[in-house]
């Protein structure tokens, strides 16, 4: 404990008396923090944009067409598969999900959205936070994601017009917004939900598809009676329902086209920024220790233990790193206030917390070499023999 107080005394005195130099390093750490937190927020935002709908499903398993490699866009299930899945013991409920993209053209600036078909009240249709669910059948009603409202100022009760290319013609359809859901981005786009039959009528279609009125779901979201029985139920579903394959939500997310590659890229950027941080901090403290060799020699010669010298270096590094991360965190918050909702930055994710923890760790990690060097300095350096 005595060593700790002595080390703290030395570390704090040095930082205070050389505050300009240490503040400069703290600012460098702050800039690295700013960069790392923005990369983390961008990663979280992009990930959300891609996976949010699937991640927030009130379901544990996803049914795909067999051999579709868990790709939602490649999977087209038979219509009776939904009923077959619902009949399997251990399935509480199941809901079909139909995916496509479209464009809201009735806005001053058209907005591309994911258009998902679902059954109200079934897995696959998120909970309504405002308004009501759409009616069934071919009702020309839609429920919008809050992100659509944020980007367009649309309100419940408004009518939107969407454009879909069917065959070789552009077709326009009117939909009344009847409700709102939250956190349902899919494939980098905000989402609107429509009834399955409506979806089939208004979705973009090829010439060959125009003659069909039957909607084929891409996937089926399955809610289990006992969510702990994931593996057992996956096996049972495959055994009892023909031509399907099963994935949990994590596998489904990782197989969303581009998701893994995109997240890998963002994470690599983050890791490299952290490595740069480690090198910068390591370099600074190493140079500082080299400049202080005679002084550390004197400290040891007059009776300071290696523990005091080493601990003092550690405390100093932690203080400067914490200051830098604090300033960087504050700057990040201030900058984030000025960003429009179209830029996918999410600061409340676990990534930001992990990034802050890692940033606090890079100081001691980067300074480790200098700490070891400081501890190994011979007190003889105080004399000319050193």
């Amino acid at each position, binding site marked *: 404990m*005595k060593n700790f107080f*002595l080390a703290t*005394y*030395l570390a704090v*005195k*040095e930082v*205070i*008396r*050389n505050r300009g130099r240490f503040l400069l390093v703290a600012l460098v750490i702050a800039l690295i923090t700013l960069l790392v937190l923005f990369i983390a927020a961008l990663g979280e935002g992009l990930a959300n944009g891609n996976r949010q709908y699937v991640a927030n499903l009130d379901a544990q398993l996803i049914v795909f067409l067999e051999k579709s490699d868990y790709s939602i866009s490649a999977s087209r299930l038979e219509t009776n598969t939904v009923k077959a899945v619902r009949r399997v013991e251990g399935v509480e409920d199941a809901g079909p999900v139909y995916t496509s993209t479209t464009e809201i053209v009735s806005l001053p600036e058209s907005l591309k959205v994911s258009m998902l078909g679902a059954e109200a009240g079934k897995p696959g249709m998120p909970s309504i936070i405002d308004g009501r669910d759409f009616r069934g059948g071919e009702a020309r009603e839609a429920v919008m994601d809050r992100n659509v409202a944020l980007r367009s100022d649309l309100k419940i009760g408004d009518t939107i017009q969407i454009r879909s290319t069917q065959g070789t013609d552009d077709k326009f359809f009117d939909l009344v917004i009847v409700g709102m859901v939250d956190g349902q981005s899919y494939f980098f786009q905000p989402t609107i939900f429509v009834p399955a039959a409506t979806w089939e009528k208004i979705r973009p279609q090829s010439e060959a598809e125009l003659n069909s009125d039957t909607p084929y779901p891409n996937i089926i979201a399955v809610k289990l009676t006992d969510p702990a029985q994931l593996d057992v139920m996956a096996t049972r579903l495959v055994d009892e329902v023909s031509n399907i394959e099963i994935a949990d939500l994590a596998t489904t997310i990782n197989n969303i086209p581009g998701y893994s590659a995109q997240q890998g890229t963002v994470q690599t950027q983050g890791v490299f920024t952290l490595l740069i941080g480690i090198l910068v901090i390591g370099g600074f403290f190493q140079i500082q220790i080299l400049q202080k060799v*005679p*002084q550390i*020699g*004197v*400290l*040891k*010669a*007059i*009776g*300071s*233990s290696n523990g005091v010298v080493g601990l003092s270096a550690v405390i100093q590094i932690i203080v400067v790193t914490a200051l830098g991360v604090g300033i960087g965190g504050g700057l990040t918050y201030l900058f984030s206030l000025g960003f429009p909702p179209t830029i996918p930055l999410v600061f409340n994710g676990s990534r930001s917390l992990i990034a802050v923890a890692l940033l606090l760790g890079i100081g001691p990690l980067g300074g480790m070499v200098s700490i070891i060097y400081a501890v190994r300095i*011979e*007190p*003889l350096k*105080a*004399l*000319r*023999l050193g």
Partner: protein
Amino acid sequence: MSSVALEVRDLVKSFALDGATINAVDGVSFQVNSGEFVALVGPSGSGKTTMLSILAALLTPTTGQVLIDGQDLAQMNEKKRVKLRREKIGFTFQSNNLIPYLTARENVEFMLRLNNKLDRAGRIRSDELLARLGLSDRLHNLPAQMSGGQQQRVAIARALIHNPAVVLADEPTASLDTERAFQVVETFAHLIHENDRAGIMVTHDLRMCQFVDRVLQMQDGKLVRVYESKQEILELAQGVLKH
């Protein structure tokens, strides 16, 4: 009656150099009593700095014994040697003496902090000692804001504040002008005598010997001569005797 504060018995320190063994210190024995100020002189390479490093428990001798306040350095592990340096030895060095980010007062008090003795009385004693050394108006100055002589006087205060048995000074006047050098060593000698400490000063400047009680002259690692009478020492200091 003064007691033996430091005793060196048949001390040898050998280094291997290009396959040959060199005795930097070669069979040296002497004692220094409390209240005695001794100068260790000799030409470059005579072994005086090696000797000082061994006395400071910074180097271990090849053979022989060093006893400080009755404690044999050879019987101590590194942890005990650190404790001995902290409690029983006071230091002043040639340069880089003070901790640059502590004020004059904090530098002196740091020795008390190290020894867990920084209380109100310690603070008063620290200020009084600095006042004795003419530094009352420099208590809150950092080393960079003081002259070389002032820094050396702060170092002297730091070397004495915790009442060590032995005070070691390594070329304390090397970076000072003549006038400052005389002032510093004279003050040092006064405080050694006044506080009844044993002081050993390594110096190449024989003029500084006028303030010491005994001069130990080293050459090629050996103690070749001891000047004990005041007359001899003064003559040495004035350059009359051949060094």
